Structure formats: C-alpha cells, structure tokens
C-alpha cells in the first residue's frame, strides 16, 4: 500500500481549508474594487494617451499668445484695426482659460460616476 491516497486526501483538505467560505470576498467589495481599478486604469490611460510633445506645443502657443496680448495691451494698442490677428488670439486665450474649470468638472463627475 502506498501513501498516495493520503497525499491526495491531504491536498484536498488543504484546498478546502484555504478556500473555505470565510476566505471568499463579498461580491459588493469585489465589484467596487474592480470599478476603482477600472477608473484608475482609464484615468491613467487618458493621461498617457495624450502625446507629450503636443501638450508642450499647445502650452508654448498659449503662453506666447498670452505674452503677445499682454504686450499689445501694455502698448495701448489693443484694437482689431492695429492687428487683425488680435481678436483671434484673444479668443483663443479666453477659450483656453474658460475650458480649464469645465474640463476639471467633467473629470471629477466622470470619476464619481465610475466609482458609484
């Protein structure tokens, strides 16, 4: 007689003890944590998907436009007749500034929606 039946029975008992009902996750915890991980994955993916070079380029453009507008304002020459590009530049800078809080709001609401 070999000890194989004992070995097999031991393994079965160990599996039973290791994964008994007490060691199981509550479905609610399981689902909630998965949603958290998914939200985290999505938020990181959004950040990583945006090309860094484009981000730097956009930042440089907005900074240059703002500096140029401020310079025009300092010269007291802030009319469309002085430069036809002026209204366009002003509109771009204003839109850029206005979009920041809106984007923040969208991100916060989106995260709360995923976590709920």
């Amino acid at each position, binding site marked *: 007689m070999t*000890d194989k039946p*004992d*070995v*097999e*029975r*031991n*393994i*079965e*008992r*160990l*599996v*039973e*003890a*290791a*994964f*008994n009902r*007490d*060691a*199981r*996750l509550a479905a609610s*915890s*399981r689902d909630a*944590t*998965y949603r*958290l*991980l*998914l939200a*985290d*994955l*999505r938020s*990181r*993916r959004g950040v*990583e*998907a945006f090309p860094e070079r484009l981000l730097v380029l956009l930042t440089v453009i907005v900074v240059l436009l703002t500096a140029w507008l401020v310079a025009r304002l300092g010269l007291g020459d802030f009319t469309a007749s002085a430069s036809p590009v002026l209204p366009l530049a002003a509109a771009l800078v204003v839109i850029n500034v206005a979009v920041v809080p809106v984007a923040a709001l969208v991100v916060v609401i989106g995260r709360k929606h995923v976590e709920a």
Partner: protein
Amino acid sequence: MKAETEDLRLARQVAAGNEGALERFYALHADPLFAFILHRLDGSRPDAEDAWQETLMAALHGIGSYEGDSRLFTWLCGIARHKIADLRRRGARGESLASLGGRDLSALVDTGPLPEEIVMQRAVRSRVVEALGLLPPDYRAALIARYADHEAVGEVARRIGKGYKATESLLSRAKAALRVALDTLDADREPGSGVEATRGRVR
C-alpha cells in the same frame, strides 16, 4: 515557462491600459489574493479588505515593472506582504506568521494524514493559496470548485467545459501540480521557520 510568458503578456496588456486584460487579471488573481491576505492577517476581514485593495492598486500602478521573473501571483503576494507589514506597523491586528510558516508543508503532505491542527493553521492556508496561484487557471478553478465548493465532478466538468473522465484526469494532475508547487515554495523559503517546529507535537 509558457505560463510565465502568459503572465508577462497579461501584465504588459494591463500596463498598456487594456480593459479586457484588467478584467482577466482581476478574474484570475483577485480572489486568491484576498484569501492569501486574509490568512496572513489571521482572518481579520476589515484589515484584509484594506490590504487587498491597497495591494491591487499598487500592483496596477507598478505592473509595468513586472518582468516575468516570477509568476504574476507570486509578484502580487510580494506586494501584499509589504502592505500587510505596513498595516502591522500602523498597529492593525495581525498574527506574525514567522513561527508558523509552512516550510516543510510539502514533506508533511507526504507523511500520512495531516493533523487537523496543521490544516487549519492560517500560515499553512496562506501557503496553499500561494501555491494554488502557481497553477494554471484551469487546474486552480477545478481544484477550488471540487474541493472547496464541493461540486460534483460532473458539475466541475460542465464549468470547465470538459468531459467527466477528462475532468477526473485534470483533477488528478492538478493535485499533483499543487503538491509540486508546495515543494517549490518550500524550497524558496528561508531556513529556520516552518511547520516542522510544530511537527513534533502533532505526531
């Protein structure tokens, strides 16, 4: 080696932001990881849930650094050990497993019927969970369904999409694989701690 490659592929897909990969990763590892942490924390569920969630978050953030040197579940258990240590430092409840570790568990499995005292040790159970994490997913699922959930072989067969005989054969191979996995874990452990310390009193 094949399984390790699959682990690495899965990790890279998760790191790349693949939601399907995250779902597979979670389906494969979330439950065993919780069981591992729960046993390491002596059954304290609130602490275990905290440590489990922190471990998964840390794993998700660091999964890009996983290089496939060990199995993915072993890597997760390593993170979990750090989180458990953090919990203990913060004063949370938790049993030190150093004197109960399952160093010679694989040998004990071979020596005859295991005493209930050993089977029910949290350290032993966490070791078994860790060893199960080394098995292919179908082996693990079949073992848990059959011996923890007490499903009939026919039910297990339906669950894994195999025939009755094939499932019996798979269960037999899975048990043998778990025995080897326990041996592997024993070999990786540091000397000087183990259930051999308790062997004398339970014999």
